[in-house]
């Protein structure tokens, strides 16, 4: 176990290092100067040079990268007027655009993205597994057909199309819901849920289709396995076989997927966040890329990598927990 963890963490650090290097490399290629944006209109060359120095972007990119790595491990001091600002480790720097610490920005966004991901995941699990079971058990022909059709349709709708339709239906035509605006959970749980409802649903429709398909094929495959025949031969009731054995076998892959998909939504739901104005991680990144806000872009990339690495590890641990055959190595 210890060995597993050490190797896992080592691998994760390598991936993260690779990712940040990649991002720095990409921005090295980008022909843009963040100082010009910051300096503003009518900035004289002399002033631009001063601003560049104050922002720490006057060094060559490799040097900047080295300072960044130093800050990450040991913290960093920034000139900030009368005093220096100390940015404690892990220091990701300050946003070029708003001058906030990147760590603060990230911590601010994570709950939003996490709420979005978790809610969408719960919805898709409930509906996906439910639909998949109905289809997998083949109890009702019609239902099976309907679910199959829905699964296919779920694959065929892009999230922004679902989002548009939902907005059109519920906010414009029926006016059952206000246009979503993010409200923190701590401010008003009811409003929070109300405003997240549409984003959840639009993400869940697609995700549920994937889960339904997996559940359905999982159930059918497990039911064809030998140990189900053994159970039948020993008189275990069909209901028990279904719930205790077939479902368990079918849901195993979902356990792994859940962790990975939560990470996927947290880091990749750019369209949903943009459509519904959710101040999540994806939106932060898109905004930062547009503003060439390098510290934020690097910070989000690191966070993305971290979330994915953690999710993968969580998936492995979960899998080992639910499947006795799996050993961590």
């Amino acid at each position, binding site marked *: 176990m210890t*060995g*597993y963890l050490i190797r896992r963490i080592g691998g994760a650090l390598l991936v993260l290092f690779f990712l940040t290097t990649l991002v720095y490399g990409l921005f090295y290629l980008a022909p843009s100067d963040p100082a010009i944006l910051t300096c503003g209109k009518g900035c004289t060359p002399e002033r631009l040079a001063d601003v560049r120095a104050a922002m720490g972007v006057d060094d060559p990119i490799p040097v900047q990268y080295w300072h960044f790595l130093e800050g990450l491990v040991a913290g960093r001091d920034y000139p900030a007027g009368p005093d220096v600002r100390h940015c404690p480790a892990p220091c990701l720097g300050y946003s070029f655009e708003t001058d906030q610490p990147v760590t603060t920005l990230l911590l601010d966004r994570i709950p939003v993205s996490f709420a979005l991901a978790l809610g969408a995941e719960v919805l898709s699990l409930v509906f996906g597994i439910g639909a998949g079971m109905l289809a997998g058990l083949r109890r009702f022909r019609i239902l099976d057909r309907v679910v199959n059709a829905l699964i296919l349709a779920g694959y065929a709708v892009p999230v922004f199309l679902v989002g548009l339709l939902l907005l059109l239906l519920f906010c414009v035509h029926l006016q059952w819901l206000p246009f979503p605006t993010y409200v923190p959970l701590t401010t008003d749980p009811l409003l929070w849920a109300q405003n997240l409802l549409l984003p959840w649903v639009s993400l869940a429709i697609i995700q549920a289709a994937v889960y339904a398909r997996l559940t359905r094929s999982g159930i059918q495959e497990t039911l064809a396995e*030998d140990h189900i025949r053994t159970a039948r031969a020993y008189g275990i009731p069909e209901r028990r076989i279904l719930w205790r*054995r077939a479902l368990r*076998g079918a849901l195993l892959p979902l356990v792994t997927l859940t962790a990975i998909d939560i990470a996927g939504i947290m880091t990749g739901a750019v369209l949903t966040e943009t459509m519904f104005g959710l101040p999540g991680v994806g939106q932060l990144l898109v905004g930062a890329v547009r503003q060439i806000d390098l510290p934020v872009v690097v910070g989000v990339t690191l966070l993305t990598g971290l979330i994915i690495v953690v999710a993968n590890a969580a998936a492995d641990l979960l899998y080992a927990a639910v499947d006795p*055959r799996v050993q961590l190595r």
Partner: protein
Amino acid sequence: MTLLQVTDLRICFGDKRAVDGLSFSLEAGGSLGIVGESGSGKSATALALLGLHQSAVVTGSIDFDGTDLVTADPRPFRGARIAMVFQEPLTALNPFQTVGDQIAEVYRLHTGASRRAARARAVEVLGQVHIPDPARRASAYPHQFSGGMRQRALIAMAIACRPRLIVADEPTTALDVTVQAQILDLLDEVRARTGAALLLISHDLGVVAGSAESVVVMRDGRAVESGTTEQVLLAPRHEYTRALLAAVPKPGTRSFEPGEPLLRLHDVRKHFPQPRRGSLRKPPPIRAVDGVSLDVCAGETLGIVGESGTGKTTLARMMVGLVPPTSGSITFDGVDIARRRGRSVQMVFQDPLSSLNPRRSIGESIADPLRLAGVRDPRARVVALLDRVGLAASEYDRYPHQLSGGMRQRVGIARALAPAPRLIVCDEPVSSLDVTTQAQVLALIEELREELGFALVFVSHDLAVLRQIADRVAVLKDGAVVEIGKTSEVYEQPRHAYTKELLAAVPVTDPAEARRLRALRSATN
């Protein structure tokens, strides 16, 4: 008193009749063997006893202790009064439940016992099937058991509810010969101890010979012959029974003086590194082959025998240069084998389906080594080879899945022959075939060997097959050769204890001899 009376049983899957008017009976506490090749309907019969067919039409009557299981609800009988032991012990157990829980679940279901009592019963029956430390092992998952132990666990599950009939469907097919013998002995012991009747289904006459009092021989869904074991096996009346018995390998008669050494193995080792688990320290490697030295001489047939995991397949693959040895040398005509691939050494594989590319015609598959050897238009030679292994030229453009298992193995042999090799290594070439097909393929190999004079390495787990075909035999255990010598000497005067154990475990078709061997085994245990 008759426990089970099957009368005119018919099982149809759609248009196909799997069982067609089968009748037999079994006394309480008695034992009956059903023997037949694949597709004879023997497994379908077993499943019908418990009403386990889902999409088949079953007619006739199955009278179990006064109840007709064809018409009555079979569910109360399942596990409680009739218990089944299946073929694949790994997949037959639920991988997510501990062995003890699975047995306890069945026991509680049929007896309504408390959790604690069920658990105790599970431990008790696990003990009865000789699982060491049953109280602890009851908490293990199936994958933590070896194949033999899993089969024991299944038998434990079968006896948990004290059934009156145990149906064992090919209970030993996937197991090594020594383990097979143990399981058969266990079934015999269980029957004696619990008084349950045993219905033993197998393709192997040898398996049935030692364990069943009477035998039914099935073919195409019908019983071609039935009677007491002695009667059927020693004085078969039906032609098919005789053919089956004739197909059982007999000791070979060829006496051959080996020529010059062709393939020389010197202290060959193959170690596979194990993945790190748990600790950071590197675990010791798996020593698949661990110091083998032997020669294969021109024109001779060397048999290599070993159970699963003894490294015999790795050894065979090293002999043709597919797997490089970790250390030691393998030379052919004094040249490293890695540089002699292709023309001089060829290989015939165990699973003829897997050894042929499903997306290429068999003619193409045979032509491939010829093309590699530089032949421009190999079609004529391929047709000649097909003819030589007993296949029509028209088979050239057919695909592997369109052929039977025996035909596929003939294709595999033809491909091996194509570049006219001086040595052919056969890795279990007949073990996946039915006994009659097996005899035909063995005969073909012997014939070709006589005609073409190549040397042969014949790897097998089946001592009987080797006794028929090999000039010399090497016995492999834990990656090393424990005994090597002339076939007759090894079989008649085995020196190594392991060889003796192996020989004692070989199933034989003579009931008396089978009983003698069983007594011998229980004496040594």
